[in-house]
């Protein structure tokens, strides 16, 4: 179809207009870069997680899992191995801590029995060398083996001390050996892993004591053996295929990562505007050449192919650049994403973000698709125009003007489709994002017609305010609507995304602040730093509550216990409260009765569930129930209320301590809430508690926080969670800015002759600047204006649809006028700024040369 001669035409054309080609490439590159960066962050986190679980799972086929995350009775392992003869079994104790001296990085403590390990794991490589100090591994409670990565990074050698904080306790462990992984993969998997003897790990993680526990038992079983074993097991434990646990944990982040991906795709959409704009411009600019080609017998299909090939070339070059740029951006994104995953979901150590071929392919593919899609309209335009009209300069704009109402209609239809998708397909998050995109694109399509209307309305005002130049500016915007409208639409999309995301975050934050104020009613909180979000079970010194209660000035203490319990629907986060925390009615979304009645129901065996939990399990507002696996087997608990909770997007179940202790054997505590006696200053009491409780070295990691500090800490995590969202939002604005810049440049370059004519007629340099600024300012203002309703709609969708479906949270929408004002100003400023370069170029060119051009 495309002859070599035509292909050469395409190439020469692209080379002859380096600025436009460059801008198109930049448009693709930026869009692809953002997509790549987010994909890189998502896949690196997932890969690091898979790698570390893979290393820990080894050749395990099945795992014996406890009812609650506090573990299995240790004797079950003896029974399994000695009485029942399942000798391919290994006890595992696993937990999380932090290493204060290693940049406070989270560490995974893995306790194993070396003699039972061989069939299961080979993180140890095949060196066969005797590791000095190995006997100490068994007998010294502080002995720990680490991988070479950690050892090298922190200069740790054999015998060096290594401080580790688990719950509130800071322990000094000793490096008793260095693991020698057999390859790079195994080496990465060992990062952040502290290998200990199972007995030592039990002690460190507080699983020893009179009823010692194991985190789980790993097994290698055939399916038949697994069936036999299942029949023998007590109802409190479950035999599960080895990968299910890891799979469930990995699923936790699905919604979070999908949100990031969607946001990154928005950047690509903005990039598409840029490509469309540039290609459209090149079509318009070359209309004469194209017309001649058509007259010479080149078919419409060939013209179409020419434009597409041009777009494809740009896409490939831009895509490659985008991959590189995305890799750079990705390094930062990985940090932000990992931080959030560590804050909210599970611990994962990501040291590097290698570019996977799949990511590269995805980026290049998306870039190419976006470019071809964006080029389709200009290519069709070029291919369908008759040879004669094509050579006429005004023909194109005329056609564009005729198209506006159609575009407007199409936009409205797309928007309506989007709304329909949001309202009708209520179960799917992907559908919600699709709806969101349809609405945004629909509104963008409506921009050109709206711009014409706006300029028509504004022209009289401008004439009055800025004279002829004002009217001229408004007319220019309309006259070149095919290009100005694209720039306006791109800017509008970017700015409205900013508005939507800002309003969503601000609303969310305000809701969380309000909720924290209602929830944090105690004066002081004793806790340990949380590692690994909701998945970790922290066990504090059980005597802590009693010791705190004895401190003068303490009126009352309450304990809290957070564990993960098994359920037919997968792991469930369970919060155990030992008394009614004077709950406000405002904390309940649905309740059967007032807070006192709810509490009475809870003491009688009911539970209350958080809003995300009710949302995820599709619980009815009234009369729902929850099935949980207890140490007495599966039990059904009626739900007395649904409460607001923004601490976990997986949802939580709250149970009274009395009921918990009836069904579970665990007696541990995870935190203590302290109420000060009246007249006692919380700050002074905190100091007294610190002095009494945290004075000894073992309790050095205990956090004693006043109400306010805990609230602030929660907000720090909140803000950290949205750091990546903010970064993405900024990137979208940058892409839009470049879009506007390129559109204006194209516009100004195209108008060189017109402007030269005006200058020849007496337009001064100052007037030229004013005219241009007026034009771009008008465009910015139009984009800003259009972005206000669009941003509002986006915020609505984000708050009421996306967030709800991703996380199950009800957020109170709060519109802040300053967000909208700011967006408008940014829009105008971006447009005006974008005019500076073309103006400077214009100022340098000579009027006569410009006039001679045609």
């Amino acid at each position, binding site marked *: 179809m495309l002859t070599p001669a035509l292909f050469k035409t395409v190439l020469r054309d692209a080379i002859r207009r380096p600025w436009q080609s460059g801008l198109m490439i930049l448009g693709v590159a930026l869009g692809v870069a953002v997509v790549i960066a987010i994909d890189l962050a998502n896949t690196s986190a997932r890969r690091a997680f898979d790698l570390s679980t893979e290393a820990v799972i080894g050749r395990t086929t099945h795992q014996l899992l406890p009812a609650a995350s506090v573990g299995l009775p240790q*004797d079950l392992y003896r029974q399994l191995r000695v009485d029942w003869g399942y000798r391919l079994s290994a006890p595992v104790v696993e937990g999380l801590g932090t290493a204060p001296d290693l940049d406070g990085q989270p560490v995974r403590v893995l306790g194993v029995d070396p*003699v039972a390990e061989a069939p299961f794991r080979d993180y140890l490589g095949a060196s*066969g060398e005797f590791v000095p100090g*190995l006997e100490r591994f068994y007998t010294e409670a502080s002995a720990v083996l680490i991988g070479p990565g950690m050892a090298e990074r922190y200069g740790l050698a054999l015998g060096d001390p290594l401080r580790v904080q688990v719950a509130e306790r800071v322990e000094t462990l000793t490096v008793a050996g260095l693991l020698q992984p057999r390859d790079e993969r195994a080496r990465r998997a060992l990062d952040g892993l502290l290998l200990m003897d199972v007995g030592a790990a039990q*002690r460190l993680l507080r699983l020893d004591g009179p009823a010692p526990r194991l985190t789980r038992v790993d097994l290698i079983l055939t399916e038949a053996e697994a069936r036999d074993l299942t029949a023998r097991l007590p109802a409190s434990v479950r035999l599960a295929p080895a990968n299910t646990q890891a799979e469930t944990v990995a699923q936790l982040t699905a919604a979070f990562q999908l949100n990031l991906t969607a946001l990154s795709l928005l950047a690509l959409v903005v990039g598409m505007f840029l490509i469309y704009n540039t290609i459209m411009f090149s079509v318009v600019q070359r209309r004469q050449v194209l017309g001649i080609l058509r007259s010479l017998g080149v078919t419409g299909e060939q013209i179409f192919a020419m434009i597409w090939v041009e777009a494809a070339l740009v896409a490939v070059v831009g895509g490659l650049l985008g991959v590189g740029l995305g890799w750079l951006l990705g390094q930062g994104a990985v940090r932000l994403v990992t931080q959030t995953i560590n804050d909210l979901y599970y611990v994962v150590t990501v040291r590097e973000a290698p570019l996977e071929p799949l990511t590269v392919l995805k980026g290049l593919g998306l870039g190419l698709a976006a470019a071809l899609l964006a080029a389709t309209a200009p290519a069709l335009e070029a291919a369908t125009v008759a040879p004669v009209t094509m050579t006429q300069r005004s023909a194109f704009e005329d056609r564009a003007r005729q198209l506006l109402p159609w575009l407007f209609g199409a936009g409205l239809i797309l928007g309506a489709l989007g709304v329909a998708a949001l309202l009708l397909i209520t179960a799917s998050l992907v559908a919600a994002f699709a709806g969101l995109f349809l609405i945004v694109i629909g509104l963008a399509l409506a921009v050109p017609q709206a711009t014409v209307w706006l300029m028509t309305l504004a022209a009289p005002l401008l004439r009055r305010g800025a004279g002829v130049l004002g009217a001229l500016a408004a007319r220019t915007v309309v006259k070149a609507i095919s290009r100005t409208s694209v720039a306006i639409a791109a800017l509008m999309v970017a700015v409205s995304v900013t508005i939507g995301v800002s309003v969503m975050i601000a609303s969310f934050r305000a809701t969380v602040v309000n909720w924290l104020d209602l929830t944090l009613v105690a004066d002081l909180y004793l806790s340990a730093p949380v590692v690994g979000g909701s998945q970790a079970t922290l066990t504090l010194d059980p005597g802590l509550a009693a010791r705190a209660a004895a401190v003068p000035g303490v009126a009352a203490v309450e304990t809290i216990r957070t564990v993960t319990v098994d359920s037919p629907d997968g792991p469930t986060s369970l919060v155990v409260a030992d008394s009614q925390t004077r709950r406000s009615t405002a904390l309940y979304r649905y309740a059967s009765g007032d807070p006192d009645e709810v509490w009475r129901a809870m003491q009688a065996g009911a539970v209350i569930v958080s809003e995300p939990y009710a949302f995820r399990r599709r619980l009815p507002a009234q009369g729902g129930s929850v099935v949980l696996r207890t140490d007495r087997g599966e039990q059904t608990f009626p739900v007395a209320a649904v409460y607001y909770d923004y601490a976990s997007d997986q949802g939580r179940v709250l149970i009274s301590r009395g009921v918990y202790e009836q069904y579970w054997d665990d007696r541990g505590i995870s935190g203590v809430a302290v109420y000060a006696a009246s007249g006692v200053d919380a700050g002074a009491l905190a100091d007294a508690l610190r002095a009494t409780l945290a004075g000894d070295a073992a309790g050095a990691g205990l956090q004693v926080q006043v109400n306010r500090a805990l609230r602030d800490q929660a907000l720090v995590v909140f803000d950290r969670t949205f750091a990546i969202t903010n970064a993405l939002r900024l990137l979208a604005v940058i892409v839009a800015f470049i879009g506007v810049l390129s559109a204006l440049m194209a516009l100004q370059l195209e108008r060189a002759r017109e402007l030269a004519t005006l200058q020849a007629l007496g337009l001064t340099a100052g007037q030229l600047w004013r005219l241009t600024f007026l034009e771009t300012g008008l465009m910015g203002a139009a984009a800003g204006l259009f972005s206000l309703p669009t941003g509002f709609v986006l915020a609505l969708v984000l708050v009421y649809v996306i967030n709800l479906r991703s996380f199950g949270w009800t957020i109170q929408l709060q519109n802040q006028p300053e967000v909208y004002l700011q967006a408008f100003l940014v829009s105008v400023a971006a447009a005006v700024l974008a005019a500076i370069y073309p103006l400077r170029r214009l100022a340098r060119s000579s009027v006569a040369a410009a006039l001679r051009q045609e």
Partner: protein
Amino acid sequence: MFKRLSLLLVSVTLAVSGFWYFTRPPAAPPRPPLTGPAPDLAGFARALAPQDFSLPRDHGPHFDYQTEWWYYTGNLTAATGEHFGFQLTFFRRGLTPGAPPQAGLSTNQIYFAHFAITDVAGGRHRGLERFSRGAGGLAGATGEPFAVWLEDWRADALNADGSQVRLRARDGALALDLTLRAVKPLVAHGDRGLSPKSEQPGNASYYLSYTRLAAEGRVTVDGRDFAVTGESWFDHEWSTSALGPNGVGWDWFSLQLSDGRELMLFQLRRDDGGIEPISGGTLVQADGRTVRVPAAAVQIEVLDTWDSPATRGAYPARWKIRIPSEQIELDVTPWLPAQEMQLMFSYWEGAVRVTGLSGGQAVSGHGYIELTGYAGSMQGVF
């Protein structure tokens, strides 16, 4: 018995480092260079002087000493005539002195056990091993009542002084369930139970035996079950000993003769081809009195050898043992040549039959022999 001590040390080191090299493909049998440091003896009690024993307590573990083992061997005959040999051995290794802590799976004790049955009629010998930490009921030993176990391989006292025990071991199609009754009194080897391993003081063990126990029970081989009776030998030994520098291996004999006498002999082979002078043994008279047999009083002549196809070890396979002072002259022949324990560390431990003279009278008998250091020198291992 130095031989077993050495074996124990080798095996423990292997067990511990097994963690490391077990990850190799099983096709290549593990034989890593063991270059670990000498075991840390600090804090452990040493066997320095004879002491009084109290039963059943002294059948149980001695956590102040580093190493300890309980060795059951024997020859069994089925009602249908088939002959079997068996070995069930429990080893304890203390990594630090003292009893293990009673907290979770924490421990300072490693146990391992070897279990073998020789099926003479079937021409088969099978040997198995297990390892375990001494915690959480997985493996352990007690004196009152006497018991020692590793998972479901176990020896449990049936009476107060531990002279009667039940032995049980099972692994797949191989199983043993025997009741043993001592028919002769406990023997304390060496000097009232103190059995020196070299000239160096403290390099010795406490060594007690039931040299003849009547055995009755069942043996399962390849899923076939046999009712059996026969005779067993029990050794219990504990020590904290350093390793000798020149040993390449050892031969150990436990023979039960039809005239009611038993003979225990050991010789430690040196790298220069000689025998450690401390070698020797004990002759137990029919009435239970014991006679120490110094190395110089014994002549052991190897009449035949057997080459292991699996490990290429060249083992002695027939002996002539003479103790002229006791008018003993015995021909000792393995029931099967192939009784090699191809475990983490390979050695030969097998049932033998005996004919010859004792006190000038014609006797027959049977016993067990252990041979180490033939499948590769033990030197360099330490």
